[in-house]
C-alpha cells in the first residue's frame, strides 16, 4: 500500500509538500484508537514542544536554513518567528558548517541552541562541529564547557528523494560518546523527547522522520501539559507480547506494530519495543523483554553493517545469551545507497512483510517462499 501511495506521487516532487500528503494508509488502519481521544500530528507535537521550551527559557533559540520567514522546510517552526522575533528564530546563510559551529559556540557561552538541519544528510557538512566540538568539549575541558544543544531535523528515508536525502544517521551519531541520540515515533515521543532534549545539559541529536510529520496520534492531557517530558534513555513497550520481541525506532515502530497485528492473527504474540533513545540505549528493557519472549527481531531503516541492530544483538548476546531460543533476526535497509525509482526504493527499506516473515522464522513457523513475493 505504501508503495502504491508513493508511485502516485510521480517524479520529482517537492519534498515538504508532497510528503505531508503522503500518509501511509496502512499505518492509519493498523491502529484502532478511540475516536474520542484527542489527536495531534508529529509536526504539531514538535512545534508545540519548541514553542513551550522557547517560552519557558529565554536562552533557547532556533537556527537553521529557512526556519524563520519560511517557517521551516517542513513547517516545524511555524509561527515561532512572529512569536519570538528574529533574535531567537534565526534564518542562516547556507553553510551547515557555519551555523552549526556558531550554535556550538553559542552553547559554549550559555545559550541553548536548537539547530535545524533541512535533512540530516546535510549535517554531514557540519559533522566536525557535532563530533569534534559539541560531543567532546565537555570531556576535553574537564567539565568546564558544557554544550547544551539540540541538532534536529528529518532523518532516514523519505520518499522518492534519492540517496542524498534518504540516509539514516542513527548509527553514525550513536557511535560517539558525548552525544545523546533520540528518535521519536509518535506525537507523544516527539513532544516528550524534544522537550527533554532541549532541557538536557548535553548535546542531543534528535532524529525526526519526514514521513511521520503529518501523521496523527492520540495524545493525552498529561502529554499536552507544558511540563511534560520523557526520560532520555528509556524505551517504551508499545505493545506487550510473549512470543517474540521486535525492536524498532522512528517510522519502523509503526511497521512493527502493523506486523504485530498480522502476527497476532496467526497466533504469534509479538512484543514491540519503541527504542525512543538510541544512545543511551535501554539495554535493560531490551534484555528483560528477550528474557521473557526468548526471541528477538531488530528493525532499522539504515544500513545493516555496524548498525543499531548489530548493537542490540550484541547486548543480548552479552547479557541474555542463554535465554535465546532462536538466532536473532536483523531486518535493515539494503546495503546500497538509496535508489530513486519507486520500485527499487521500496525494495531497499524494510516492509511490514519482512518483519512478519522474520518474526515467523524466529518462532520456527514455516514461511513459504511463494508468500513472500
Amino acid at each position, binding site marked *: 500500500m505504501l508503495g502504491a501511495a508513493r508511485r502516485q506521487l510521480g517524479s520529482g516532487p517537492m519534498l515538504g509538500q508532497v510528503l505531508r500528503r503522503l500518509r501511509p494508509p496502512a499505518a492509519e488502519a493498523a491502529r484502532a484508537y478511540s475516536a474520542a481521544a484527542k489527536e495531534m500530528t508529529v509536526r504539531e507535537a514538535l512545534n508545540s514542544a519548541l514553542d513551550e521550551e522557547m517560552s519557558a527559557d529565554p536562552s533557547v533559540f532556533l537556527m537553521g536554513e529557512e526556519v*524563520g520567514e519560511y517557517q521551516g522546510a517542513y513547517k516545524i517552526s511555524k509561527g515561532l518567528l512572529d512569536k519570538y522575533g528574529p533574535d531567537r528564530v534565526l534564518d542562516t546563510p547556507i553553510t551547515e558548517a557555519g551555523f552549526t559551529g556558531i550554535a556550538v559556540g553559542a552553547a559554549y557561552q550559555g545559550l541553548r541552541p536548537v539547530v535545524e538541519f533541512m535533512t540530516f544528510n546535510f549535517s554531514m557538512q557540519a559533522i566536525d562541529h557535532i563530533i569534534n566540538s559539541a560531543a567532546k*568539549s565537555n*570531556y576535553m575541558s574537564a567539565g568546564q564547557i558544557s554544550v547544551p544543544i539540540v541538532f534536529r531535523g528529518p532523518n532516514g528515508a523519505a520518499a522518492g528523494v534519492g540517496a542524498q536525502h534518504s540516509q539514516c544517521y542513527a548509527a553514525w551519531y550513536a557511535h560517539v560518546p558525548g552525544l545523546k541520540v533520540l528518535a521519536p515515533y509518535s506525537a507523544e515521543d516527539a513532544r516528550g523527547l524534544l522537550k527533554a532534549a532541549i532541557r538536557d545539559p548535553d548535546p542531543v541529536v534528535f532524529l525526526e522522520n519526514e514521513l511521520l510529520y503529518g501523521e496523527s496520534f492520540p495524545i493525552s492531557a498529561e502529554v499536552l501539559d507544558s511540563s511534560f517530558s520523557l526520560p532520555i534513555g528509556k524505551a517504551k513497550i508499545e505493545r506487550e507480547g510473549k512470543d517474540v520481541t521486535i525492536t524498532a525506532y522512528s517510522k519502523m515502530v509503526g511497521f512493527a506494530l502493523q506486523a504485530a497485528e498480522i502476527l497476532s492473527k496467526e497466533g504469534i504474540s509479538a512484543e514491540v519495543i519503541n527504542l525512543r533513545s538510541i544512545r543511551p540505549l535501554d539495554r535493560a528493557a531490551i534484555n528483560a523483554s528477550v528474557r521473557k519472549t526468548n526471541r528477538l527481531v531488530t528493525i532499522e531503516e539504515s544500513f545493516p553493517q555496524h548498525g543499531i541492530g548489530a548493537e542490540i544483538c550484541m547486548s543480548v548476546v552479552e547479557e541474555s545469551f542463554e535465554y535465546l531460543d532462536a538466532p536473532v533476526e536483523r531486518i535493515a535497509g539494503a546495503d546500497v545507497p538509496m535508489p530513486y525509482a519507486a520500485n527499487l526504493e521500496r525494495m531497499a527499506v524494510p516492509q511490514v512483510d519482512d518483519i512478519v516473515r522474520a518474526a515467523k522464522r524466529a518462532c520456527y513457523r514455516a514461511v513459504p517462499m511463494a508468500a513472500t513475493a
Partner: protein
Amino acid sequence: MAPWLARASSQLARRAARRLLSAPPPSQHRLCPPGPWLLSSAPPVLGTSPLPAAGSGDSRGFCSVRRFTGESSAAAAAAVEEAENGLVAVGGDQAVDFPGGKVSFVAEMNFLPESQKERINCYRVLDDDGRTISGSRFQEVSKELALKMYSEMVTLQVMDTIFFEAQRQGRISFYITSHGEEAINIASAAALTIDDIVLPQYREPGVLLWRGFTLQEFANQCFGNKLDNGKGRQMPIHYGSNRLNYFTVSSPIATQLPHAVGAAYSLKMDKKDACAVTYVGDGGTSEGDFHAALNFAAVMEAPVIFFCRNNGWAISTPTSEQFRSDGAVIRGQAYGMRSIRVDGNDALAVYTAVHAAREMAIKEGRPILVEALTYRVGHHSTSDDSTKYRPVDEIEHWRTARDPISRYRKWVQGNGWWCDADESELRNNVRQELLKAIQVAERMPKPPLAELFTDVYDEIPSNLREQERLLRDTIKKHPADYPADVHI
C-alpha cells in the same frame, strides 16, 4: 533576456511584491510599471507588471529588513524606499536598485583586477629601532601597563624556551612555541578586558598568561597531572580556563572561528559590554570555517574580533601556496566587514588596533578583522623541523633584526622605564619560577582512574558506571598487571 535572468527577475519580482506591500499597488494605467527588478532597459510592455502578488498579505520579504536594526538595515530600508522609482539615471548611465543597494550600469566591460596595484598597507607605531614613527597615533600606555606588557612578553619567551627543552628531554610529549609572536599574544590581550571571551587557536598562550594563568597552571596542563584544569585529557598546550574566559584549545584548524561568532552572538543577546576574540593563522584562513564565520558574523552583526596571525608559514606551506589574495585583510571587505593590517611585531600597533577594534565591535555591534604580519620564528611544533623547508637566514633575520621583544624593550627603555639590571632580574626570576613549576608538576600524581569516565556527559550514564566497576574489579584481581601510577 537570458532564461536564467528572466527566472531571477521574476523571483525577485515576487519577493519585491511582498516587500513593497506598504507601497500603493501598481496602477494598470501606469506606462512604466515598477521595473527595478527587470535588468533590462527595454520599455516594459503593459500588462506584464512583475508584481503579480501585491496585496498577498505577507509583509515579510527577501531582505528581511526588520530582522536587524543596525546600520545596514537602515541602508536596506532606504534602498527599498527608492526601489519604486525603478531605473535611475546616474550621470548619463542607468542604475538598478538591487537588493543591497544601487548598482550603476556602464557601457564598458571591465573585469575587476585580481589584485590592487599596491598591497594593503600596514599600521605601525614603532620603527625597527623602537622609536615612534613621526605622526603615528596610538593608544596611550601608562608606565605600569607598558612594563606589565613587557614582562609578560619576556615571560612567554622564557616559558616557551624551557617547555621546548622539557619536550626535547622527553618530559612532556609535545609543545608549541609562540616565538616571534610575543607582541601579538600580549599586546592583543592587553587591549581586551577579562569579560571578553577568547577562543584561541593554539599559538596564543600569552593571552592566557596575561589574564592570570600561572606558570604552575601551564606546567600542570603540559604534564597532564591531577591539578590540570583539563584533568589530563588534552595534549600539551590545549589550555582552557573558565575562570579566565579562555575556551579550551580545539585541535581542528579554524573551528574556533564559528564558535566565536556564536559566543559573540550570545554576548550580544545578553547585551554584555564585551566581545568575542578569536585567533587564526594564515593557513586557517583557507578553511571553510573561516568563510562561514566571517560571513555569518557580518550578517548577524556579531561583536567579534577575528585576529589573523599571518606568520608566513602553515607548518611547511608558505602563504604563496596558501592563497593568492593580499593576505587575509583584503577579504574583510568582501564580507562587508572592517579590517586592518597591523605590524604584528610592534606591540603598540597591535595594542592600539585591537583596542579600537574592540570599541567598534561592542559599541557598533559589528565584527572586525585584524591581520597581523609576523613570522613564526620557532618550528611549527616539537614534531617539526622547519629548517627542512625554509632558509635558516630567513629565520635568523626575523629572530634577531625583527624581534618584537627587543623592539618594544628599546621603546620602554627609551622612556627610562627599564634597565639592564631589571632585565636580568626578570629573566632570572621567571626561569627559577618555571623550573620549580615543572618540578612540582612532574611530581604531582596523575588524574585518578575515576576521571576516565567523568564529563563524557553531565551525569555519568549507567554503561560508563558499569565499565568503571568492571575495570576496578579487574584491577583488584590483577594488581600486578596494572600501572602503579593510576590512582584507584
